[in-house]
């Protein structure tokens, strides 16, 4: 019967069981077909699925399984061989694919698992970032708070406002229950409660500064959590026992001098204030790190703000002080001006009112002197004249000094003759000097100009003062005056190291030295000499005539002439030397051209003033004698020639005005001759001038001649001009110098 070549099913055909199998297979096939569809659908939807080919594999596996089950449906009944073959093929394929898939899955599943791991990791990371974001946000908020706080604090320079604002803002920002500031007292040993936020605790409470909790806070620049039972934290009135956490921070109180730009002076400030912050007791809040940082920053800012406030206070105080001082100075200045005006008015009055009568006295006394008087009367008139001259000098001195002091004195610059100046000065002191039998010598250096430009009157005053002092303080001996052009080296006075005169084309410095053998000066008193009105105590009272102003005035004049004056002395009894250097102009090179001189007499005329002048000439040398005689006669003199000292003495009578002695020949003691001539004429009113004719210019010999009482020296060989000028000078000024 098997003509259909059918295959018998394996199992017996149980109808019910087969029915159920049939249905199950159908549903399995359905499911197996729909699963890949679903997979495809959802994978298509998802963007990321890295294992598509796995999907294909899996899908085909499932499809094949479904096909197998589907084909199985046909095998429940009689089925043909084809069906069986198809079935077998399907099963084989399915087997292959499923095995492949199984193998594949071994690789894939760990991967898939690790994806999951990564996902978990990312989630964790995201959570962490979230947390950090939260932190940053918090910090930013903190920063904002700080900036706002700082702004508030620093917008005022008033100390109280600063502190109050700080407490208020901190309280607000951190939602504090209480905030307090303890300031150190003046003694520095205690802290005093100065500011609180809520004023719930009496102010002025004092706590000693050496508490351990306070030391702990002060020793660190961080905000420190302290116990709420410590004395500084007990800010609630009694009765409330629970308080929130308390934090304390130090606030450095910077002094102005502690400010360093680049770093906070951690170690140098000693003074701190204490800021105490209390969290509310009924919240379970803790102090967070960022809040502590906020507190620390605020404390620092407060410190700065306080210092600025202190600086401002300081400067305001200084400004007030300055204003006061200004006012006082102004007042003083006005008073000084008034005084000066009064002084000037007084001077103006004195100038005229006092001088007039004194001059009248002097003038009339001089006139009286010219009339016929008995010797007693003459003596009286001379005394009157001397006293009133002295008075006039005193007045002038005082007036000069005041004018010098206020700078109103101006030098009267004109051309002057230095030679004339010195002769006149010498003439003035000659009487006194000869009464005291003092030898006065005068010498000029060869490079000294005849004329100079300066204030003649004041220079004369200085010279007279110095020479007068020399004469006054010398009882016996000599006074030598020498004038020269100053060279730089000779000008140094150890007491005036700042004086460096530099001659120029227009000026030279005149150096005058007056040396005397008088009573000397104690070296310690030398600085006082030029002080007004100071008289040396040790020089004895006999010489205390004079105002004591002379040297002070001389010094002023010398300074006006851009010079320097000083006195040297080796001690009492050893004489003294006064030296002054003044700056004078060189005539002809500056614009001064005032010549107070009469132009020279032309050479050819016989000068009438020498006509008939009786002179005596002593010269051993015949030729020289003749030549000199010729010159003198040429000038109009009546010459009597002698060739020896004795002869000279014999023929000399008082009608002879000049005696010329040739001193170049040894063997004749001209000095002794000069002295004897002096003696011969000592009873007379006047004696002839004694002039030495010297062959070699010898300074020592010149000095000796002058010291021996001669009036001058003329160098040989004599020329007409020299003789002429010598005679003129001799007759006009009474003294002759070699030039």
């Amino acid at each position, binding site marked *: 019967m098997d003509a259909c070549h059918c295959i018998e099913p394996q199992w017996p055909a149980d109808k019910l069981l087969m029915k159920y199998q049939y249905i199950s297979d159908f549903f399995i096939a359905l499911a197996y077909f729909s699963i890949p569809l679903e997979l495809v659908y959802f994978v298509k939807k998802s963007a990321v699925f890295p294992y598509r080919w796995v999907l294909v594999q899996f899908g085909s596996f499932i499809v094949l399984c479904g096909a197998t089950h589907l084909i199985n449906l046909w095998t429940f009944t009689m089925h043909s061989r084809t069906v069986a073959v198809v079935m077998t093929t399907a099963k084989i394929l399915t087997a292959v694919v499923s095995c492949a898939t199984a193998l594949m899955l071994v690789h894939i599943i760990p991967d898939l698992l690790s994806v999951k791991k990564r996902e978990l990791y990312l989630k964790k990371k995201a959570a962490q970032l979230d947390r950090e974001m939260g932190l940053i946000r918090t910090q930013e908020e903190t920063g904002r708070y700080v900036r706002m706080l700082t702004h508030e604090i620093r917008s005022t320079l008033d100390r109280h406002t600063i502190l109050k604002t700080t407490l208020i803002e901190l309280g607000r920002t951190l939602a504090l229950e209480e905030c307090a500031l303890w300031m150190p007292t003046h003694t520095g040993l205690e802290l005093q409660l100065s500011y609180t936020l809520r004023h719930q605790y009496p102010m002025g409470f004092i706590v000693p500064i050496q508490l351990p909790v306070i030391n702990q806070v002060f020793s660190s620049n961080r905000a420190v959590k302290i116990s709420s039972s410590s004395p500084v934290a007990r800010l609630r009135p009694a009765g409330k026992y629970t308080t929130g956490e308390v934090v304390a921070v130090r606030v450095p109180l910077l002094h102005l001098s502690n400010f360093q730009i680049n770093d906070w002076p951690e170690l140098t400030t000693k003074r701190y204030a204490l800021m105490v912050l209390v969290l509310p007791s009924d919240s379970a809040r803790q102090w967070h790190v960022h809040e502590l940082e906020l507190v620390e920053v605020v404390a620092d800012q407060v410190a700065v703000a306080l210092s600025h406030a202190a600086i401002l206070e300081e400067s305001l105080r200084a400004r007030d002080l300055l204003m006061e001082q200004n006012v006082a100075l102004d007042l003083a200045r006005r008073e000084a001006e008034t005084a000066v005006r009064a002084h000037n008015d007084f001077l103006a009055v004195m100038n005229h009112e006092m001088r007039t009568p004194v001059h009248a006295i002097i003038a009339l006394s001089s006139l009286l002197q010219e009339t016929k008087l008995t010797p007693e009367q003459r003596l009286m008139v001379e005394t009157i004249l001397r006293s009133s001259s002295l008075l006039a000098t005193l007045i002038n001195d005082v007036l000069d000094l005041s004018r010098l002091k206020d700078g109103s004195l101006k030098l009267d610059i004109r051309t002057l003759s230095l030679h004339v100046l010195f002769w006149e000065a010498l003439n003035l002191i000659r009487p006194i000097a000869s009464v005291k039998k003092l030898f006065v010598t005068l010498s000029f250096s060869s490079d000294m100009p005849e004329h100079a430009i300066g204030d003649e009157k004041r220079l004369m005053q200085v010279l007279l003062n110095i020479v007068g002092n020399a004469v006054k303080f010398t009882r016996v001996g000599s006074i030598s005056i020498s004038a020269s052009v100053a060279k730089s080296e000779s000008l140094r006075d150890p007491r005036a190291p700042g004086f460096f005169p530099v001659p120029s084309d227009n000026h030279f410095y005149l150096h005058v030295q007056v040396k005397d053998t008088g009573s000397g000066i104690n070296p310690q008193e030398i600085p006082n000499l030029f002080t007004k009105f100071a008289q040396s105590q040790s020089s004895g009272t006999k010489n205390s005539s004079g105002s004591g102003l002379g040297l002070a005035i001389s010094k002023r004049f010398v300074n006006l002439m851009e010079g320097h004056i000083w006195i040297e002395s080796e001690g009492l009894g050893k004489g003294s030397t006064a030296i002054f250097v003044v700056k004078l102009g060189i005539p002809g090179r500056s614009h001064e051209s005032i010549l107070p001189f009469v132009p020279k007499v032309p050479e050819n005329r016989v000068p009438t003033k020498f006509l008939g002048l009786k002179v005596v000439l002593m010269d051993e*040398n015949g*030729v020289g004698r*003749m030549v000199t005689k010729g010159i003198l*006669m*040429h000038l109009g003199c009546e010459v009597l020639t002698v060739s020896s000292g004795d002869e000279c003495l014999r023929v000399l009578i008082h009608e002879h005005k000049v005696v010329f002695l040739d001193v*170049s*020949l040894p063997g004749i003691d001209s000095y002794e001759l000069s002295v004897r001539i002096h003696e011969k004429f000592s009873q007379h009113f006047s004696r002839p001038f004694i002039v030495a004719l010297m062959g070699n210019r010898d300074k020592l010999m010149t000095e000796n001649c002058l010291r021996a009482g001669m009036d001058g020296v003329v160098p040989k*060989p*004599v*020329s007409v001009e020299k003789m002429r000028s010598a005679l003129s000078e001799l007759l006009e000024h009474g003294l002759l110098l070699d030039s």
Partner: protein
Amino acid sequence: MEIVGQLQKQYVDFINSLFREGYLDDQYVQLQKLQDDSNPEFVVEVVSIFFEDSEKLLNDLASSIQQQVVDFKKVDGYVHQFKGSSSSVGAQRVKNACVAFRNFCEEKNLDGCSRFLNLVKQEFYLVKNKLETLLRLEQQILQAGGTVPLIE
């Protein structure tokens, strides 16, 4: 007149040469200035006295140097005198020689002294010669009716 002019020119040249060569110096000019109408022979007189004195001095000098023991002080004294008179007249070279002579006297250098004595003598006779010539020229000018030109 021509002769006067010639003589004057001769005179001027001569006296200038004397100045140039140092025989005379400015002092001689001074002497000439002193000569005027009241004293017409002044220069001649002075020069004559100079010659006389100098001869005497030179003799004294020679004899004092030739002594056994030379008194240098005395020699110096003579030389000093000679110097004085020669400078008064303007005999420059003589004067300079005297100055040097005096140095040897101070040093008591006999050899130097005698050498310089000869030198001084030599100079003296030289200048004497010149002066005599000069004065003769002056005379000639004056006799010819001219005036002696003054040298400044």
